[in-house]
């Protein structure tokens, strides 16, 4: 017992120190926006799986592909809102071209933007579209 107390105190001190130090070094430590969206969709009962990282030649930010009920959901997170807005402004209302790139999507695109995030859902499931609109606002481009 005499030995246990100092060890316990030592552990607590180390823990507090680690906790405080981590908070100071990583003040923005929290789930990434893409994963936050995925968690939200899962919480709504949708089957959401991570698929792969992605880079689109017509977007400045790298992205992440998830599958939502088997359909692709591409999430691009920019360093700033203005950077996301700049790329979003180049997307045609149909969602079929971005700037001077015409995109032959595998399924009808539905494109959303919220803050520094551009989200592309490739599919036609009205439930998924509704959940994305609830989370991100109305789509900014894409199929009706």
């Amino acid at each position, binding site marked *: 017992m005499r030995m246990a107390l100092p060890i316990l105190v030592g552990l607590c001190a180390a823990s507090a120190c680690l906790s405080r130090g981590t908070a100071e070094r990583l003040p923005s430590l929290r789930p990434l926006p893409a994963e936050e969206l995925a968690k939200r969709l899962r919480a709504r009962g949708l089957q959401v799986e991570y*698929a*792969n990282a*992605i*880079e*689109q*030649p*017509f977007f400045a930010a790298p992205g992440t*592909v998830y599958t939502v009920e088997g359909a*692709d959901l*591409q999430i691009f997170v920019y360093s700033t809102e203005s950077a996301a807005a700049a790329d979003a402004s180049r997307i045609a209302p*149909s969602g*079929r*071209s971005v700037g*001077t*790139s*015409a*995109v*032959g*999507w*595998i*399924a*009808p*695109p539905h494109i959303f933007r919220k803050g520094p995030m551009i989200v*592309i859902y*490739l599919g036609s499931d009205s439930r998924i579209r509704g959940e994305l609109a609830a989370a991100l606002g109305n789509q900014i481009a894409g*199929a*009706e």
Partner: protein
Amino acid sequence: MSLTPRRVLLAFLVTTFPSMALANHSWGGYHWARTSNPFTLKVGNNVNAGWQTYFDTTISDWSASSVLDLNVVAGTSNKHCSAVTGTVQVCNRRYGNNGWLGLASISITGGTHITQGTVKVNDTYFDTSTYNNPNERNHVMCQEVGHTLGLDHTSTDGSSQNTCMDYYSNTGSNAGSTLSTHPNQHDYDELNVIYSHLDSSTTVLSATVMPSAMEDLLIEGPGQWGREIERSEDGRTSTFELDFGHGNRILTFVTWADRDSTDIPERRNLLMR
């Protein structure tokens, strides 16, 4: 109904130019600048054997236009399907699970003049049973090349207008359908509209003025770059010139890697005339 001047004019246009009145799928007014019609556009063939038939069909289809001819040349792009000034480069590759079957990109100068184009078809999908059928391959190849000519989609609702510029999908129960696998008259009419004017200059790599020795040239190493005409003070960048006479030159801009690195130098080629 009274015949207002506007209605009379519309009736005249529709009866006089019935097909032109329907043509309305220009992509942002983008077009190749040229000084005469018909013009010849070089298309670099970078596709593998699996795509050759569909590439050939697409070239033949679009060359049926009365305002342009597509002239196939050896592909001069690289694995990234980099653009080559004055040409369209067509490539296939497994570009990954990125959501697109095909991607057409163009570069613009002066607001609407196309200076170069690339077409990529994505084998990540076409190597799967869902997309691997002749009709879908024809549809996508035809559509992406059509974009580089200045055409947009005719529709995006998934219905077929029997043109490759629509968004019909030749997959699943439609895999055997030949609908939407070629351009239709509407597309040729739109090309007539887009290219009805002439420009004062050209952005098309000339098929006739460039010496044949400049064609299909593989510029793989310093031995093919010609003479060094410029070098930066720090020695990191150089410009080489290969002179074909009569003002025809290939300039190669080289950014050297560290001398003790095994990396190849980054370089850019520019055809000059």
